[in-house]
């Protein structure tokens, strides 16, 4: 093995322009793969952050209430008891809170938007206020000041609202302005409430364009609900990856405690109205979900990024494979005498094959490691300097207003292994040609 490595590494070092070009190409493609994986992971992280901040806990205990078989409200009653059971039965719980859910038209003097309402208790929402950043006024008001106006803590006062910058811009409002919320109650009558804008936060990607936060009391009033109701108990775990297991466990716990449960349906609650309305039960059923279910309508973004990435990488991999085959084919032709000599002094066919494949693998390993490492460093730097994404549409898709790149060591390793493997496989055919060279070529070539 040592000898083959010596031969391979020295041949590579003497490889000249062809080898250098090939290694550059390999390094580039591996680097590109690492970059795209970091981008996909970055979007994933942004999405997780936005989802778990705005619309869901890691695990959610929500539900529907049906007064008649024909309607459905996203409400749970007796929320204090439900929350107590959830908290007591969740291992490694970080914190828990509950939010009201609503859907209303937010009307300003000039415009209106439909918006998901989250009724919160400011005292429970420390994490929310750590994650969102209040926007500078000039981000949503033409000619506004480059300073934060407003205070999210004022959501503790009744009839207040926190909007996101894109909504404030569309509604043409700023902190201190009045808005009217218009909604329909369970009984089909239209209700309104006036609220004051107390804070405007920076956008958190696609989801923040239809989310707003307001105090629980305002929602209770808007929908005419009793105090011990809520939308969902949101459980935040120390390890988000435990969410599916925790959900499964809590389903058993709640079933044992006598609660009626809906079958697990991995969709956000607002997609479930149609199915629930069609079912002929009345009263309350709990619906347990994990965060991913509540943003499943957004995972297409990840799928799209991954699909494009893999397609691109597959095409490049094929080109690389052809390049390697070609380069090695030429190398074999140039080295027929050497191969013949080795065969003549007793090297077997399999060893010749191994020698060329090893050489390719070594080339692959060096080039891909270099490419992956450089790309990872580049990605870390880009992430660190927080390059802004200039277009709102792109911000929405990438769930962030700066380019988020998250480099996973496992992705680095996978990219290196994958392209080294491609190199090795591509070397097989030229290596097989080399292995079939008869020993007599040691002599022929010299004449």
């Amino acid at each position: 093995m040592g000898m083959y490595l010596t031969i391979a590494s020295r041949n590579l070092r003497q490889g000249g322009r062809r080898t250098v070009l090939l290694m550059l190409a390999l390094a580039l493609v591996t680097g590109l793969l690492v970059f795209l994986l970091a981008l996909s992971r970055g979007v994933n992280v942004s999405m997780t952050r936005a989802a778990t901040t705005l619309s869901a806990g890691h695990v959610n205990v929500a539900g529907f209430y049906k007064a008649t078989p024909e309607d459905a409200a996203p409400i749970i009653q007796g929320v204090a008891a439900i929350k107590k059971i959830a908290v007591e039965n969740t291992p490694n719980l970080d914190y828990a809170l509950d939010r009201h859910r609503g859907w209303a038209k937010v009307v300003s003097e000039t415009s209106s938007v439909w918006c998901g309402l989250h009724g919160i208790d400011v005292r429970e929402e420390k994490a929310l206020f750590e994650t969102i950043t209040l926007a500078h006024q000039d981000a949503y008001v033409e000619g506004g000041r480059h300073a934060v106006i407003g205070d999210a803590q004022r959501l503790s006062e009744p009839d207040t609202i926190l909007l996101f910058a894109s909504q404030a811009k569309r509604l043409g409002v700023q902190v201190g302005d009045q808005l009217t919320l218009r909604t329909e109650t369970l009984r089909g009558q239209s209700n309104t409430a006036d609220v004051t804008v107390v804070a405007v936060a920076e956008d958190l990607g696609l989801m923040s364009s239809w989310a707003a936060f307001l105090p629980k009391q305002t929602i209770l009033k808007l929908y005419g609900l009793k105090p011990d109701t809520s939308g969902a108990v949101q459980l935040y775990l120390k390890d988000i990856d435990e969410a599916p297991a925790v959900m499964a466990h809590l389903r058993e716990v709640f079933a044992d405690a006598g609660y009626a449960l809906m079958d697990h349906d991995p969709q956000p609650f607002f997609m479930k109205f149609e199915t629930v309305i069609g079912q002929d039960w009345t009263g309350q059923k709990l619906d347990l979900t994990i965060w991913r279910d509540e943003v499943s309508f957004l995972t297409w973004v990840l799928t799209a990024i991954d699909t494009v990435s893999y397609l691109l990488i597959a095409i490049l991999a094929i080109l690389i494979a052809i390049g390697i085959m070609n380069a090695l084919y030429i190398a074999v032709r140039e080295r027929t005498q050497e191969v013949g000599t080795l065969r003549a002094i007793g090297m077997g066919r399999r060893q010749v094959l191994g020698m060329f494949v090893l050489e390719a693998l070594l080339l692959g390993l060096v080039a891909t490691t270099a490419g992956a490492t450089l790309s990872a460093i580049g990605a870390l730097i880009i992430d660190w300097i927080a390059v802004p994404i200039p277009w709102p549409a792109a911000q929405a898709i990438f769930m962030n207003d700066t380019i988020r790149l998250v480099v996973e060591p496992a992705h680095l390793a996978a990219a290196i292994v994958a392209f080294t493997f491609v190199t090795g496989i591509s070397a097989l055919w030229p290596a097989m040609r080399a292995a079939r060279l008869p020993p007599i070529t040691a002599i022929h070539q010299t004449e």
Partner: protein
Amino acid sequence: MTTHTETPEAAPIVELIGVTKDYPLGKLTVPALRGIDLAIARGDFIAIAGPSGSGKTTLLNLVGCVDVPTAGAVRIGGQTTGELKETQLTSLRLHKLGFIFQTFNLVGVLNVFQNIELPLLLQGGLSKTERERRVAEMIEKVDLTPQTRQRPNELSGGQRQRVAIARALVTRPAIVMADEPTANLDSGTGGAIIELMKEINRVDHTTFIFSTHDAHVMSHARRLVELVDGRIVSDRAPDRQAQPEGA
């Protein structure tokens, strides 16, 4: 053939029986060897002579299992090479035969030590220390100790030929083929190479078969086979002229 009726000394180590070799050349075939019968005894020191194109290289290639005959049989240590599988031929080349090419054919990217070590690594079985001892000993024998870490392109022709000889001999093969081992060397260096081969032949009883144009080199052989046009025209002891008998 389960019993040995002959003593090992009496059995020829190399046997060519009615060997012909044709090379295709376009639509023609070039006959390089035309019916060679030759038996070579173990421990012999035999020169193949003849004009250019007479078939010397072809003959050595066949004995070295680097090529196969068109007709007839080549037997090495009793085994007919045409009947062996590729892996068996490889093993034969690796363990029994040593080949010294006219053009040296060293591996350019390896240094002197590594070139000589190569066949031992291919054979396997020796410990690292034992292998390195054997290589160092061989390097000493061909007088290249100062050049141990040099690459072939840093060596003179004579030095390269000595590396090639060391590489062929390091596995202690039973038979060594050398195709014009002195043709690319000046007469002084050539003489030293022949002396080295003679020494190894004498000490280890290695069978040497070498081709040459050089009458002086022929005179060192114990047996001289002359080829003309692919046929053996004479097979005799060489004329002793230059070197007195003594080694």
